[in-house]
């Protein structure tokens, strides 16, 4: 193990280590703690200039105020309406495609794989004008579908890479024996491969959920009305209205960040498994 286990070090060194970790962590989270502290302060206190002392009163009502005074609930709901179908769609298409790429040798296999992987890395700007025009022409501009379809299609690239690599690790012998018993390729996929995919599906779903939940660029380009706006562009618009009401901006930011953060803490193992795919060879 590297570095050498700290438990075996002398006591002084051990305590120095704990102190170092604690200090590093505090510095690391400093900007965030500032926002947390501000979100529970009253406006009067901020006006008095008490920014960083202990709050005189803990004003959790800032959070309620955000919901009462702004369409925050609507924005959150919009994000859910956009995110869930896009996640489900991308994963479904990618599981099928990943199976095709992982378990069949055919001309163009590597080319298709490179298309998915390379496409996944292109800058959004090279897609922006044509994709936006297409949405306008199809009458989808400023609707949920504009975002759902784009995210679904784009994330299919990353998901296919992920699924293809995962399915490659499943032994071919499973498929062979099913073939000998007379199963066709689609039955093999459905009853042999798919049941083994559960951990990969979970890992991928958590990861893609976060990616789409946090999207800002496409929301900016594809939708504009409050009825469809997701929480990212919603929050950014509210900031323009609130100007200097930092207690509300802070509370709003925390509300917007909560779902992906909660998801991460609940499903940490899946999340990290998805993210670090390929970090160990």
């Amino acid at each position: 193990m590297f570095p050498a286990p700290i438990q075996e070090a002398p006591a002084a060194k051990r305590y120095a280590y704990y102190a170092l970790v604690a200090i590093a962590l505090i510095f690391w989270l400093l900007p965030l703690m500032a926002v947390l502290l501000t979100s529970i302060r009253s406006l009067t206190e901020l006006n008095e200039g008490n920014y960083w002392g202990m709050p005189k009163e803990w004003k959790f009502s800032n959070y309620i105020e955000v919901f009462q005074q702004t369409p925050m609930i609507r924005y959150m709901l919009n994000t859910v309406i956009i995110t869930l179908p896009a996640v489900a769609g991308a994963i479904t298409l990618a599981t099928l495609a990943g199976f095709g790429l992982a378990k069949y040798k055919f001309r163009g296999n590597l080319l298709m794989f490179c298309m998915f992987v390379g496409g996944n890395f292109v800058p959004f700007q090279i897609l922006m004008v044509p994709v936006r025009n297409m949405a306008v022409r199809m009458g989808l501009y400023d609707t949920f579908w504009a975002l759902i379809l784009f995210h679904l299609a784009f994330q299919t690239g990353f998901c296919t890479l992920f699924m293809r690599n995962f399915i490659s690790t499943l032994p071919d012998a499973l498929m062979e024996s099913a073939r000998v018993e007379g199963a066709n390729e689609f039955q093999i996929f459905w009853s042999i491969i798919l049941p083994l995919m559960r951990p990969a599906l979970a890992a991928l779903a958590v990861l893609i959920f976060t990616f789409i939940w946090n999207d800002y660029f496409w929301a900016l380009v594809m939708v504009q009305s409050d009825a469809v706006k997701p929480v990212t562009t919603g929050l950014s618009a509210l900031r323009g209205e609130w100007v200097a009401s930092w207690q509300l901006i802070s509370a709003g930011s925390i509300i917007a960040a909560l779902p992906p953060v909660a998801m991460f803490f609940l499903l940490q193992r899946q999340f990290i498994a998805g993210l670090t795919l390929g970090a160990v060879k």
Partner: protein
Amino acid sequence: MNSPQQSVSLAGEAALPSKRRGISIHLVPWIFMAPAVIVFAIYVVIPIFQSFWLSLFDWDGLSPTKKFIGIGNYTALFQDEQFWTSIKNNIYWLILFLFGPVIGLAIAILLNQKVRAMRIVKSLFFFPFVLSGVVIGLVFSWFYEPSHGLLNTILGIFGLPQIAPLSDEHLVTFSIIAAGLWPQIAYCMILYLTGLTAVDPEQIEAARIDGARGLRMLWHVIIPQLRPATFIAVVVTVIGALRSFDLVQVMTDGGPFGSSSILAYFMFQQSITNFRMGYGAAIAVVLFLIMSVFIAFFLRHMIRNERG
């Protein structure tokens, strides 16, 4: 990842059940891939070519006719001061973002211990990665706020001069990059933590017996074994640096006076705010070409790995 692929298209083809049902085995993978290939082509592959084409036109995005102007957008672009400012800032982003893997590795080494509560400490270091760019932009805008922000409060405590990171044109890009590094370091850290678990303990023991310790051990034994993690960390960092958009848009709108603009933001501004879609497409093409170098590098590495 490198399990031998099966060649169903070779031996015993005629005996395969799919044949009986009238579907050639050659078609099977394409049937599985068709939906993904179609949506990906429509939304990703074809638009890339369309952008190249569109960059040869003068178009406001609204009028039904586009005016062909050849390379006019590009010649205008190369004379646009804002373009060169954006390129310069993109280079800053690219270089400074490489602190992501370096600091990420340092934190990973710090945290790679099996002591109580380490799991939660690791999660706390990692979780900025799951925050959206908008939230990070707002968090740092508040942190940098000149009159009441925490940064100036801390500088004040140590008697240092006050700064206005986001309205000083010499500081602004670096201040945004620092905010962008926050989640990027977290990402690299988690890649290295995973990499460290796979380091061969026998080699470490052998090196210890040979008297290697600390930095020597790190440099000669650990880092070579972390190559896969380093490769991915550098790739995602470079791509992330060139893709950055959210923070600039949220924190400064490219300001003050366009000094924090980067290509991704410049493109958005020209096409959406100024209705210069053809010009925007030309900027996108330049950004795409820069990124293609890195994408090609990544694909080449990946293909080599596949062929093993």
